[in-house]
């Protein structure tokens, strides 16, 4: 890897030093333009396994585009996205998800005319019964798996205080309940890395605190790595050990929130015109 900028050189050196054991996601020089707009421009960062990593930046920094690139919803013009040791930059979104990289959306999206439990049951990644014949015939292995998933779904719903709503249509839930269901649903998929796109947007502080407790709990108990795109910096500070800052489509800094506050480039990006 030959790099021109000294910053990028040092980054690739550290990347090479670290192994797949410690790095779950390694984004290398990805770019994406929409017409003349360079939404993501030669952007690189890594996410450490088992961490809760924040991704912040002013509006228009390219965070959501980066999320869409990482999860395959948009294809990168250039660059590599190494997830769990394999390049996933050219995979369609469902293949990315099947590898264990799951996401939530900025605006909560539910399977509205399906019940809360069905929303959960739709999540697991390896469902024998989702193939036509085994599903149609209701093979014993399928029934066994369905039973296991149902028990796990109900357990998770109880953990997320949604158990009493299990038979309710997801479309009838309140905004806060939707956030909880969305998180419970992606946890149900047992991902290795969970990308949350603004999980705290538009929810009240009490629920936000609950949600952040859940995130920490899922990180600890289930070993899920979290990459959280968020504007609520207090929440990011509370949750994230490492925070990546994006501006104008690139990563401009990385560190703890305390460090970033002292970083002139970050302060500029947020306050100045840069």
């Amino acid at each position, binding site marked *: 890897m030959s790099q021109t900028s000294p910053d990028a050189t040092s980054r690739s050196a550290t990347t090479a030093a670290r192994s797949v054991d410690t790095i779950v996601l390694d984004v290398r020089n990805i770019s994406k333009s929409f017409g003349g707009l360079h939404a993501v421009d030669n952007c690189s960062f890594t996410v450490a396994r088992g961490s809760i990593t924040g991704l912040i930046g002013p509006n228009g920094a390219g965070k959501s585009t980066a999320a869409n690139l990482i999860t395959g919803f948009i294809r990168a013009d250039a660059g590599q996205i190494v997830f769990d040791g394999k390049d996933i930059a050219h995979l369609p979104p469902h293949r990315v998800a099947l590898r264990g990289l799951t996401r939530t959306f900025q605006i909560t999206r539910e399977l509205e005319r399906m019940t809360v439990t069905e929303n959960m049951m739709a999540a697991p990644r390896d469902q024998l019964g989702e193939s036509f014949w085994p599903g149609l015939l209701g093979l014993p292995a399928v029934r066994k798996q369905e039973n296991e998933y149902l028990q796990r779904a109900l357990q998770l719903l109880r953990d997320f205080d949604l*158990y009493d709503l299990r038979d*309710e249509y997801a479309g009838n839930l309140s905004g806060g309940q939707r956030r909880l269901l969305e998180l419970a649903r992606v946890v149900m998929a047992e991902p290795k890395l969970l990308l949350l796109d603004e999980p705290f947007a538009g929810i009240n502080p009490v629920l936000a605190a609950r949600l952040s407790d859940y995130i920490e709990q899922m990180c600890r108990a289930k070993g899920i790595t979290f990459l959280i795109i968020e504007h609520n910096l207090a929440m990011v500070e509370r949750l994230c050990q490492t925070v990546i800052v994006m501006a104008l489509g690139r990563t401009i800094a990385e560190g703890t929130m305390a460090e970033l506050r002292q970083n002139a480039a970050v302060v500029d990006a947020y306050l100045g015109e840069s």
Partner: protein
Amino acid sequence: MPILIFYLLTLAIFGAIYGTLALGLNIQWGYTGILDFMYIAFVAVGGYVTSLLMLQPSQPALGETYVLGLNWPFIPAILVGGLAAALLAFIVGILSLNRLRSDYFAIVTVAVGLVLYTIAGNDTPLVNGWDGLSAIPQPFQDALNLDYNTYQFFFLGMCIVILILVYIFSERLYRSPFGRALRSVREDEMVAQGLGKNVFALRLKAFVIGAFIAGIGGALLVIYVDAFNPSAWTTGETFFLWAALLLGGSANNRGALLGALIVPVLFAEATRLLPNILPPNILSPQYVDSFRYIAIGILLILTVRFRPQGILAEKRFRVRKSKLLEPAVATAGGPVPVTDADLADNPGTLTDGNVTPGEEGNTL
């Protein structure tokens, strides 16, 4: 009143056939959310292919020209007819289902339907053009040798057996994890993709399965009416089936059957009698068709406006009591378990005795 009986028999046969057709459309639209406006073309392909396989070789001297004419028995013919419709769906689907979102895909289906309609009508050597096929052999009649009337009962029985098979198939499909994946695609493609569902493959499968059922139903329809030409499968016919499904209830197989009884059977078939009842100065027979379309249109608008889920709404999946978790240790904010002491203290409010923390029901 034998005439009335045979009229009702006719309606019953149409009911069974249209019921089968509605179930196929339900898999495409009700389960998966695919806007298919060429459904009647799948019906036609199934009907044509089955007929062409069962007919004697074409006799151009008698003014009839068509391909095949293989004199096949009924069962392989109807299966190949269904497969032919499925193959058409596969080709249309693989070319456009992954590139086009639902409404644009719908435009493609309208176009393909019209292209097929035009080809079938104008390419006379193919399926005898606008004159269509007729004198299609009656299934099993060689072996049974029934008189005309008795055979009608036999045919009804056959249609009902196929309807029941398709119904059981559809229900099983709906309840399977595969059906759940189809519905997740219907609800939100992006969420489904985010959960690892191959949206394109699932939509393609549902489209093909629905078309296969359409082809089977089409074979029965063509054999029953015993004459089939392109005017029998105009785009308008597709909307009869759509109206049936939307009125009866999308994603509910019983709703689809009910809709098939109400719209194509009661509305379309039974309105044939209207000119006999109303004097010609009020309803001239030539306007019956037009009034039928107007009535169906109004019915569709009223359904979508006032009862968008249809008469029989989609069934709600409820977790079975036997599958529920053991009552949890009461958590803050959670339901408080009902103890024997509570029951003793408030016998009036708990007379049915089945209020448990696990059975709170709908709280919204």
